[in-house]
């Protein structure tokens, strides 16, 4: 391992432990492994030229594919949350002023307001002046709404109950 024995400056030599013994090599590995365990960064991917190994290349594409699918997935409460959750919560399904996912991505300002029809339904079908109003949007990850809401919403409702807060009718917004 000639890289280990040459080209260190004097200052560096004072601080560096020799790296030739088996013991130190094993410490190297445990130090690096310990640091790697502390970070989600994709450290130390091997290379072939200026490219990733095929397994890493495919993994990167998988992860990005999942992220894109989460953005573009259509949110369907019955499928994503199950019938019993939907029956229990009796939420109101609404739409933002963005008609499609693409319009929502191009016009986030439309995604911040309700469509006229949805606004009217909210006025008619939801109790006003609740202390806590839960609104679920599919936003940039329908997958996150699918996964998090069934756990989060009951917790929020319980906490609101303990504090004596009134809870509005949950509103679900597409786009």
């Amino acid at each position, binding site marked *: 391992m000639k890289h280990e024995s040459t080209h260190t400056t004097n200052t560096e030599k004072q601080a560096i432990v020799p790296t030739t013994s088996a013991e130190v090599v094993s410490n190297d590995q445990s130090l690096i492994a310990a640091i790697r365990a502390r*970070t989600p960064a994709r450290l130390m991917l091997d290379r072939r030229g200026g490219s990733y190994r095929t397994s890493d290349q495919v993994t990167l594409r998988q992860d990005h594919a999942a992220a894109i699918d989460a953005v573009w997935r259509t949110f369907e409460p019955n499928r994503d949350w199950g019938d019993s959750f939907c029956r229990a919560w009796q939420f109101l399904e609404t739409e933002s002023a963005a008609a499609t996912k693409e319009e929502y991505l*191009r016009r986030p300002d439309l995604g911040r307001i309700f469509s006229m029809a949805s606004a009217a339904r909210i006025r008619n079908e939801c109790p006003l002046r609740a202390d806590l109003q839960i609104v679920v949007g599919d936003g940039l990850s329908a997958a996150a709404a699918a996964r998090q809401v069934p756990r989060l919403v009951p917790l929020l409702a319980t906490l609101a109950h303990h504090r004596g807060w009134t809870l509005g009718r949950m509103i679900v917004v597409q786009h």
Partner: protein
Amino acid sequence: MTFSATLRSQKFSFPDLRAVMAKANEEKSGDMLAGIGATSHLERASAKTVLADVPLSHFVDTPLLCPDDDNVSRVLLDDYDAVAFAPLRSWTVGQLREYLLSEKTTATEILGLQWALLPEMAAAVAKLMSNKDLVVAASRIHNISRCRSTLGQPGVLAIRIQPNHPADDIPAILLATVEGLLHGCGDAVIGVNPATESVDTVSDILWALDRLITTCGIPTQHCCLAHITTQLKCMDRGAPIDLLFQSIGGTQKTNESFGITLGLLQEGRERVLEGHLKRDAGSSGRQVMYFETGQGSSLSADAHHGLDQLTLEARAHGLARAFDPFLVNSVVGFIGPEYLFDERQIVRAGLEDHFVGKLLGLPMGCDVCYTNHAAADQNSADNLLMLLSAAGCNFFMGVPGGDDVMLNYQTTSYHDAIAMRALFHLRPAPEFENWLESRQIMREGVLLPQSEQMVHRLLANVAEKSSPPAPL
């Protein structure tokens, strides 16, 4: 002056130059969001036709944004070289385009033009250029900048190591940095985007990077990309600042939304220059600022004044050059699809920003990137990376696997740096390459095989000692 053109027996009229500029832009979702973009292809083509015949004098005589209302306009008009501009007064935007592309024009002549041009002129000429034009014209302009390393020479491609961590974990930041160094990256800067704005955390990061650079004698510079006020507070406490970072925009209101004033930038630059002298930072240059820009930031801050996003980006570049920066980069795909919708728009904007910055004299780099909700993927980034390498871009980002786990977006990787240097016969900054050779990381531009022991050797004396020295 009236602005109209008749194309295929259809007449297009534009109320003012601002409208011509906006509608002459290649399609950007941000200009549509602002309600100022062309609504048909023919309208876009007619705006380009009109713009080609606008004399450059018009940009000086009738500023797009009045300097009484906006201090960026004031800086731009105060800074440009009116004497050098005088011979160009009667030139049209179309003539400027041809001059920049002609083989009869020398690189020296183009360099001599830089301070004669207002940013709005640079934006205007970019609107008349094809993607190929933007690459070819930029490739002839070499803006060299110096701190501990020298960037921007022909044949040099530098890389910023961007070793971010979602919780600012110092050993993890250092390991990612060392990995970058072993890939020949880090000659532009080792620059961390902190997850928090805490003065303690930012100081810790600065000390850790400083320790690594000092102990290993690396001819590069560090930066922690917190808000400028946070960095200056760290400096008050004695933390070392090599490069002072700030995001800037093309209007006063945009900069106010970033929480900065021109006075603050000036004061910060002077303090960092003083700091360099005091700590003998081994700087061979006087360039200590690092700016980031990107199309769409003014609209995002509701501060665009009806100007299109390319013109505003050019104005941000004009502001940057007033502070003699070491690095400037456009974070081109970061802002999201409401400003740059897809690969086509991101690629176009990246080429525009690079060209405009180079024409105005900036040491221009690019964060070739995309977010997961843009219609782009790694192939899009590969494409822009190759085009900008051909255009002579000063530097790119280097992130492990191209995946920034703190900012949650995709950018370019250490691997990409190796590929671009090989493909375009480019080398690291010369001082840095000498260091790589001395550490047996690179020989004659080719990386040598690595081992975990090499990682350890670089890490060993910094991992446990990166806290600041005890106060006296």
